[in-house]
């Protein structure tokens, strides 16, 4: 009896093994040989390849290489003509007319039309579709009202004039609109395909693309295979024939796969970052974003500006990046990250300069003054909260030591699981908490508007009328020079009142194999394989 059972189990297992393994193996092998195959890692399964739905980097990194919007960010991270060959902007800066390329086609041979964009953007804003990226479309006239269910669809300022002309009306002149529409949320959707099959984007078999690559195979949660798109208008630029995307979440495994040649690129496990970061093949690129801490100005003692500033100036950001994170981030002495270029070609950071610089002496003086203002004999208890992770813990502990050393203040630390942390932070239940911001598009206002009075990203209880006004102006001013002036001013107010204080700007550190060149990562996050080469 026992032997019989064992035999059956063995046969079942072997059969199962045989059928699951044979086809995946074949996928990979059929592409080796003459073709250039690039091995990438996407980390995990993309949330969605439907442009209006997938609002995260695991979707964007891949999707940005399958599809293309009216503009695409170039190697210099600035928007370049893509599906739109050229465009006109009206005198008042509110009406954009895009002229689509005659030779822009979908991978199934259909031409890419203005109707496809009209359809896709309507999908983005349609309240029924629950798109997390819908807020990006609020720049478009009628977009916010439609998305909130307060306005009709036909009042949305997107109109296909004819097959190849798209007219977009904005609520206000928006200097960064061309940058925003390079975001995958604004990619077109093949209207014909999507109306016939609303689930066109969930499987490789039905997926139509208009970018450098097509989705040849998508085994969910396992791997994807992209092949060069011979319908792409700029196909001669594309040098990679096949991109194989693994979905490996564990950084150590990813690095080990890189070592064995199973991946052409890897991120660096934090445990060995300080050894690896010296490698000649390590590429460090900026990522627009800020790691910072929020004070809750509705809780003692942080209702006091001087006490807030004392805490901010007691932190040596340079030491944190040099000895704690050790990932070559740039210590942040301002709020807007470097790399945002004004109309005159100057960097935002260079203009407002260093606003938050470590100064223990001044910090102690401010703390004393602040305590006198509030009539404190002893500082109320301070609890610093962070969402649970080893790196957040290391930073928090370092800060705890710095507060002790530079202010003589004992700060208590507490870690909270992410979901709870976020809820508590939004509900203003945390007194002093870790925060981070990653830009969605390349304009400083994306970050700065987080701290207006009614923003859901504020989470400090801080409110300043002048600040709100400056941000409103920065979103509506048509004169770019003035618009940037408003943003400089807004940042100065942040530094003056310090409801938050900065630690470091983000970066993207990757190790590339010797043979790979030309992969571009934009500071706003997504990745370009269009110019990649592998020898």
């Amino acid at each position: 009896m026992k032997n019989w059972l064992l035999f059956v189990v063995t046969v079942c297992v072997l059969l199962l093994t045989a059928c699951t393994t044979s086809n995946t193996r074949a996928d990979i092998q059929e592409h080796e040989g003459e073709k250039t195959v690039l091995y990438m890692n996407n980390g995990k399964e993309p949330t969605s390849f439907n442009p209006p739905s997938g609002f995260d980097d695991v979707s964007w990194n891949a999707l940005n290489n399958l599809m293309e919007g009216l503009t695409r960010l170039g190697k210099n991270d600035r928007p370049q003509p893509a599906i739109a060959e050229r465009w006109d902007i009206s005198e008042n800066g509110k009406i954009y007319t895009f002229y689509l390329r005659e030779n822009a086609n979908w991978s199934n041979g259909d031409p890419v039309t203005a109707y496809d964009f009209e359809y896709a953007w309507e999908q983005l804003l349609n309240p029924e579709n629950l798109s997390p990226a819908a807020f990006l479309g609020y720049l478009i006239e009628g977009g916010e009202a439609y998305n909130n269910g307060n306005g009709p669809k036909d009042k949305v300022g997107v109109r296909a004039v004819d097959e190849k002309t798209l007219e977009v009306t904005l609520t206000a002149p928006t200097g960064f609109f061309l940058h925003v529409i390079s975001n995958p949320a604004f990619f077109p959707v093949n209207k014909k395909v999507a109306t016939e099959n609303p689930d066109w984007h969930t499987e490789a078999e039905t997926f139509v693309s208009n970018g450098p690559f097509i989705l040849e195979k998508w085994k969910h949660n396992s791997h994807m295979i992209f092949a060069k798109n011979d319908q792409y208008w700029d196909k001669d630029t594309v040098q990679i024939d096949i991109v194989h995307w693994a979905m490996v979440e564990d950084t150590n495994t990813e690095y080990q796969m890189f070592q064995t040649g199973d991946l052409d690129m890897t991120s660096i496990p934090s445990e060995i970052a300080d050894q690896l970061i010296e490698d000649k093949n390590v590429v460090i690129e900026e990522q627009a974003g800020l790691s910072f801490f929020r004070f809750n100005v509705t809780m003692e003692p942080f209702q006091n500006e001087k006490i807030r500033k004392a805490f901010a100036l007691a932190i040596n950001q340079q030491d944190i990046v040099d000895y704690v994170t050790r990932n070559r981030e740039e210590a942040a002495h301002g709020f807007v990250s470097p790399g945002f270029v004004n109309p005159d070609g100057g960097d935002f950071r260079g203009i407002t300069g260093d606003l938050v610089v470590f100064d223990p002496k001044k910090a102690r003086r401010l703390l004393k003054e602040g305590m006198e203002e509030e009539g404190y004999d002893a500082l109320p208890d301070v609890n610093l909260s962070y969402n649970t992770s080893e790196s957040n813990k290391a930073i928090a502990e370092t800060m705890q030591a710095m507060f002790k050393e530079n202010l003589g203040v004992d700060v208590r630390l507490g870690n909270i699981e992410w979901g709870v942390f976020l809820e508590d932070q939004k509900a203003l239940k945390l007194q002093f908490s870790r925060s981070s911001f990653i830009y969605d598009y390349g304009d400083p206002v994306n970050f700065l508007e987080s701290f207006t009075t009614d923003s859901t990203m504020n989470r400090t209880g801080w409110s300043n009328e002048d600040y709100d006004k400056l941000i409103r102006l920065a979103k509506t001013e048509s004169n770019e020079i003035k618009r940037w002036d408003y943003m400089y001013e807004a940042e100065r107010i942040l530094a003056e009142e310090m409801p938050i204080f900065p630690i470091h700007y983000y970066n993207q550190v990757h190790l590339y194999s010797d043979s790979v060149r030309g992969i571009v990562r934009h500071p706003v996050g997504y990745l370009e394989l269009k110019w990649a080469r592998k020898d």
Partner: protein
Amino acid sequence: MLRYILKRFLTMIVTIWIIVTITFVLMISIPGSPLNEERGTSESVQRNLESYYNLDQPYHIQYILYLKSIVTLDFGPSIKQPNQTVNDLLGQGFPISFELGMVTILVALLSGVTLGIIAALKHNGFIDYMAMSVAVLGISIPNFVLSTLLIQQLAVNLNLLPPATWASPLHMVLPVAALATGPMAIIARLTRSTMLEVLTQDYIKMARAKGLSPWKIVIKHALKNALMPVITIIGTLLAGILTGTFVIEKIFAIPGMGRYFVESINQRDYPVIMGTTVFYSVFLVVMLFLVDIIYGLLDPRIKLHKKEGE
């Protein structure tokens, strides 16, 4: 026998119902909502999302809806992977996790029993000590440490095997080795001790006296009885292997369903939490049930006892 099975089956249903209910209560009592994103969505979108996922309903209605989804075996769409239903996720992930788990238990059984028999036969000899040292080592090293070690040595340094992912039988070697070592060690120790006990019994002496070859005695007579306790603990080991796959699948980037189990809780993806919990508990309860039945089939004393009881 049939009555016994029926009774066990009813107990199974009740067990699963209790698990579902406890999971539901725990799930709704963790703070944080699946729709609480870093960037807040507009109020109307938030409202639409809530009503789409029935999160605007009172808890007792939500509970009844969950029970309904379990009975109809349709867990609905995942909140965090909107293009896939929970059934899709389970359908893709389960065969792979099952394959990993089954191969592991098979490897653990075969190697553990072999190791145990050898150790018992060479009792207190060099081989016995070696085998038991390996077993102690296997029990003490956590599988995630072993995985990293195996990848580093066998894949990176020696380049013998692929480091991760799930593409060919060769890709299975490392994860199965990492996962099977612990259970193998337990089985080896157990087999050894029961084997030692069995070998001293009279019927073995009788067999020896009849002049049977030592191998025939071990395989045909001793092993059958020595394996009874091993079969008993397979159920427990299976639970250990299942939870072990959560970690191993992540390290080896295996597209099984273990990752959803952990991730869904972090993301408060309610339908996936319920789906994976129900699935795992049903699977485990059924496996334990099967082990009991096999146990009954293998051990005549149990059958006898049941008959007498009726």
